[in-house]
Structure formats: C-alpha cells, structure tokens
C-alpha cells in the first residue's frame, strides 16, 4: 500500500514537472504567437531576431513577400534568382528562413535549393510557387525544401510556414 502510494506520488510529481517544463517551453516557443495569429492576430517576431531571404524574380512578389516578413518583424533581404541566392550565401551571409520561388531565370528554385544544400546550408527553405501539380511540388520538395506554400502568399500562409518550420523565440 505504501509502495503503491509512493508510486502514485512520484507519478504526480513527474507530471507536474513535465507540465511546468511544457509551459516553459511554450513561453519560449513562438507557438502561442502562432496560435494567436491563427485566431486572427498578427504575431510580432522581432524579439526572435529571425532573418529571411526572399528569392523571386518578380518585382510584385518581391515587394509583397518583403512586406509580409517586415510585418511579422522578420528582417529580410531580397534577391532576384537562384544564382543570387547562392552568391549571397557564398559571401558569408546566412538566414534562418529562405522563401524560394520555383520559376526564375539563370538558376531556378529547384537548382538553387539543391546547390544550397550541397553547400551545407541548413537554413529552412520554404518553396513558394504558383505551380501546384503534385509532381512539380514533389520535385521541388525533393530538392531539399522544408516546407511548401502555394502562391499568393498571405499573412496566414506565412505564419503557417513559421509554425511548420518550428521557429523558436530566442530567450
């Protein structure tokens, strides 16, 4: 009986400890921010100091994606094609997140993603394209993407990308 009570007490203590850890984890994680976003509020991730690179040859999309990231407090740079994305990494820059278009001149998104992975770039890469055929998406994913969203991008789609890619707020 005493052993049984000890067992139950230990179990409860472990559960309380795990709950505390879980709540602490949530506090540091942007999960709650994302949760509020999905409930209609726009999260501000400026404190997380995330950085992003927009890779798109279209000026309209460059402008929109840049603004979307700005709105979420994510500092970001913009390049016009896959080759420029590779070049910027060769120059020593690194980003937490890369929003990669598929169809671009000089070097497309599939080629650029493969090249970046070959270079050892471990940034999270999210493919964003109007192409939504299963085979096209599969080819893009297999190049080394971490996530994929169909254009046009919106605040909620971008928040979904951040949620899927498990970004953390730095303590």
């Amino acid at each position, binding site marked *: 009986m005493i052993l049984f009570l000890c067992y139950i007490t230990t179990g409860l203590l472990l559960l309380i400890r795990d709950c505390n850890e879980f709540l602490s984890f949530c506090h540091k994680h942007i999960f709650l921010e994302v949760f509020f976003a999905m409930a209609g509020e726009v999260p501000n991730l400026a404190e997380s100091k995330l950085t992003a690179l927009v890779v798109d040859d*279209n*000026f*309209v*999309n460059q*402008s929109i994606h840049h603004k979307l990231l700005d709105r979420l407090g994510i500092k970001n740079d913009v390049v016009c094609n896959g080759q420029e994305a590779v070049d910027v990494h060769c120059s020593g820059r690194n980003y937490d997140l890369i929003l990669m278009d598929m*169809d671009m001149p000089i070097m497309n998104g599939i080629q650029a993603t493969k090249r970046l992975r070959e270079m050892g770039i471990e940034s999270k890469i999210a493919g964003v394209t109007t192409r939504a055929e299963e085979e096209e998406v599969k080819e893009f994913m297999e190049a080394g993407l971490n996530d994929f969203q169909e*254009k046009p991008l919106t*605040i909620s789609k971008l928040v979904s990308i951040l949620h899927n890619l498990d970004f953390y707020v730095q303590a």
Partner: protein
Amino acid sequence: MDTLVAQLQRQFRDYTISLYHQGFLDDQFTELKKLQDECSPDFVAEVVSLFFEDCEKLIGNMARALDQTGNVDFNLVGSSVHQLKGSSSSVGAKRVKGLCITFKECCDSQNFEGCVRCLQQVDIEYKSLKAKLQDLFNLEQQIVQAGGRIPQVDI
C-alpha cells in the same frame, strides 16, 4: 444632410464593393490592404503600380512572340503568361488571372488564334482595372484631403 466626407466615404465603400462583386478584385487585394500601415501608407498603390508595369512588359513580350508569323515560340508566350498569372494572382486582379488561365491553355495547345484573342482581352482587362483602381485611389485622396478617414470595407 451628409457631410462631404460622409458622401465620399459612402462612394468609396460602394465603389470598392462593386469592384469585388464585378470580379475585378478578389480576396488577395484585401490581403494587400492589410499590409498597408502608417510606415507604408501607399503600399497598395506602389504594388499595384509594379503590377501594371509588369503587365506592359509581359504583354509586349507576348505580342512580339506572336508576331513571328509561322514561327511562333508558344513556350515563350506561355512563359510570359505564367508570369502574368503569378503577379495578377498576387495583387488580386481576378479577371486578369482568369484570362491568363485560358491564355495558357491556348499556348499549351499551340492555338494561335486563341492566343491572339486572349492577348487582346488581357490588354483590355488590365487597362480597365488600371483605370478603376486609379479612380479608387483618387477617392481615397479626396477623403483624406476633406479631413476624413478611409473606411474599412468588409466584403
């Protein structure tokens, strides 16, 4: 009696709703409006301006490609159509995007007459949208100049 601001605001509301109901704009335009703030009060106008520059450039490319009678590169035309579909989708230009879908099908089936027809329609449609959005932005300016706030319009 309605003040000038109230009249302008009502006009703005009605005009905005009509653009959505007539299929000129879709939800993506609403998403663009959400991104406009005090730091970038002209964001929508700027993006839309980029879109219309894109239209001119791409339609020019398509026209030149279709002009090569007997030697039309439908892949080249299709590529420009794909780009226009992308940017029209990004700004919520619903009719232009819809025409691009039909246009792409004509390119894929190498239907020359269909492509020429689509090109003419896309040209008319983007110019029509350009005029209508200019009217909308003018209304916004008039409201602000009259001392009013631009109303949020729920579609």
